[in-house]
């Protein structure tokens, strides 16, 4: 499968567009890197690909066709601060089962521990919560993952653990990943190719 950004343009109001004529393709089972200075629209492009934002120009295509506008979103977006992506009043067990009951193997691969399931989000560290967010997003219907600076607030050991797990999952389940990061050394390590915005 292929997730494509075709001639994407985006701007807020009547100001100068942030993105203009952007073309990008993410293929199943491969990791594409995306880098660029602050304010270039990396996160905006990520949101457009996951359909959290509508582009002002151009289209997002999955295998050449417009994705369905309802039902489970096969393109899942994960961002830097997991705490803002979860319901603070739900326990972890409920959060990870929102779409599907979590897969035991996947829990193991991502290092999500059973005892966390009975806790609230604020009772986990940033790294632990990021693993929870990944577990929730990697349901059977997920085909693509937009990983927006997902490990930039973590220590190097947590970072390598999460990315090594994602490399393995991406290959095994044929999931395409867009890795957005400022860290070129990291992208060198995980991505087959890196695009600079």
């Amino acid at each position, binding site marked *: 499968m292929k997730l494509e950004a075709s001639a994407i343009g985006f701007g807020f109001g009547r100001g100068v567009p942030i993105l203009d004529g952007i073309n990008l393709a993410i293929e199943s089972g491969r990791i594409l890197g995306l880098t660029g200075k*602050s304010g270039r629209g990396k996160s905006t492009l990520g949101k457009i690909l996951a359909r959290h934002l509508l582009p002002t120009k151009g289209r997002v295509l999955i295998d050449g066709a417009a994705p369905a506008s309802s039902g489970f979103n096969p393109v899942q977006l994960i961002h830097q601060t997991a705490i803002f992506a979860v319901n603070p009043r739900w326990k972890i067990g409920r959060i990870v089962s929102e779409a599907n009951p979590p897969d035991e193997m996947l829990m193991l691969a991502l290092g999500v521990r059973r005892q966390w399931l009975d806790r609230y989000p604020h009772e986990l560290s940033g790294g632990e919560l990021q693993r929870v967010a990944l577990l929730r997003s990697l349901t059977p219907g997920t085909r693509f993952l937009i990983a927006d600076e997902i490990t930039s*607030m*973590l220590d*190097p*050991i947590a970072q*390598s653990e999460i990315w090594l797990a994602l490399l393995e999952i991406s290959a095994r389940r044929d999931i395409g990943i867009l890795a957005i990061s400022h860290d070129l*050394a990291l992208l060198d*390590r995980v991505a087959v190719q890196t695009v600079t915005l």
Partner: protein
Amino acid sequence: MSLLEIERLTVSFHRRAGLLRRVNVDCVRDISLAVARGEVLALFGASGAGKSLVAHAVMGLLPANATAGGAMRFDGRLLDPPAQAALRGSRIALIPQSIGHLDPLATVGQQLRWAARRAGHPMTVPGAVEGALSRFDLAPAVAATFPHALSGGMARRVMLAMTTVSGADLVIADEPSNGLDAENTARVFRCLKSFAEAGKAVIVISHDLSAALEIADRVVLLRDGQVAAQERANAFAGDGEALCAAYARAIWNALPQNGFSRGHHEA
């Protein structure tokens, strides 16, 4: 001689367990470290390792249900609560983790003047505010703006400028690169290095090891509230062979530019 010496610092939190029982949880145990004038010390650790608690213990800003044990000395003087209250904001400055600590209702210029006055040397010369801002690449017009109109990188540099006008000898920066891109991170870290070059002692708390290593002389690695290793910053260069502690080597190996390996180290 070291400007700040911390000896066997322990921070414990008291929690109620049931109706009558109270329990103490030690979040920082037996941490000893020292930093001298002209030196940049990086305090590194995973989240929850106790980095910020060390900073707050030095400042005397621990939460009400926490107590600090051990001894701290600043410039040879015992750092007890009255000394902390007297030195805070004048000789010891903390640059907090969140830029939300700037007052949203006062202009940048006003806040700089307050910082200078609190430290006991008010700004009287015209243009002093603008001069302080220009040292951190901030335009004179920034003085008249309110914090909400600043970008993350600019707000951090405003906090650095507040530290300089206070004339502190010891600067503690808690995660100064959070939310900044590589360019702004480098800029903020260069400013911190310039503090050390001007004879101040600097402690940088960061989980971004690569950025911290650019300016640090020494690195203290914290793990589960204890000092796991103390290394010279240059030991992280090259093949990492000069690193003594197992945890430091595990961190080195996990960096993407090195082995990018999972953290297999003795617990």
